[in-house]
């Protein structure tokens, strides 16, 4: 096998570290969970989730994990969105439509402010 030059080794290291960074989902700071049970879907959770990812993309946010969960027993509050950030911990929001979803990205995730009027408790 031919020896690699120092430049080639550096390029290889850069490429591999980028690949590892992509795969390492545990290091992500922000986690958004959208309730996508049958009740959530019927209440419009698909539109909510699409609105969240569109805003994440529009604002150029990296490292935000978006997970789809099942019903969490709050069917009357669907679509339900939970947001975990290091600064604010876990906060759940109810009846999240497309507009509120964008607000959650802009105000909660980016500005670090809880939207108190829409906050719900997930305790059943």
């Amino acid at each position, binding site marked *: 096998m031919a020896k690699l030059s120092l430049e080639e080794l550096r390029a290889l290291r850069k490429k591999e570290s980028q*690949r590892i960074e*992509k*795969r390492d*989902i545990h290091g*992500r700071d922000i986690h*958004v969970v959208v309730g*996508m049970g*049958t009740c959530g*879907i*019927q209440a419009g959770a*698909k*539109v909510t*989730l*699409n609105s*969240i*990812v*569109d805003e*994440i*993309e529009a604002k150029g*946010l*990296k*490292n*935000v*994990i*978006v*997970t*789809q969960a099942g019903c969490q027993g709050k069917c009357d509050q669907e679509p339900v969105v939970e947001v975990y950030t290091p600064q604010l911990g876990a906060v759940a929001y109810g009846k999240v439509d497309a507009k509120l979803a964008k607000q959650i990205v802009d105000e909660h995730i980016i500005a670090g402010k809880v939207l108190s009027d829409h906050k719900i408790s997930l305790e059943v």
Partner: protein
Amino acid sequence: MEALDFLYEAVKNSIEAKADSICVSLDQAEGRLHVTVVDDGQLSVTSDPFAPGYSTKGKGRGRGLSLLKSFDEGASLARENGKTILSFCLDADGPLEAEETLPLLFSLCWENGVKLGITLGNRFFSTEKFALEFGALNEGSAIARMKREITSKDNRS
């Protein structure tokens, strides 16, 4: 519920049935969407799976297939050569807006370690291909990029 909402539910069922891989075929013609979902998960049906309330997953389950049957009398669930095959056909007038649903399915399957391949007309998308392009498919930006990819391919056809 829209036609692709039933697809979303069907893929969730395949994941729950511990499938390693799921193949979906979507074919829209004359205002109807033909959907076939094939998975290699488990299936143990003892009576009519389309009967309301029939479920092997416990209380509160067993709504999906009976609801599907009310929309499509011809919906079928079969087991052949170790594969479960669900097919149904629903009204789907106008644009399918596949980009609103398919990226969510790829993300969900990727997160659960399940391979998903979807044939949409004459195009093919898969978790493996998307993961090579976009890395972690449960990242918000990756879901948005899959949406763009599916939309752009939609417009080209």
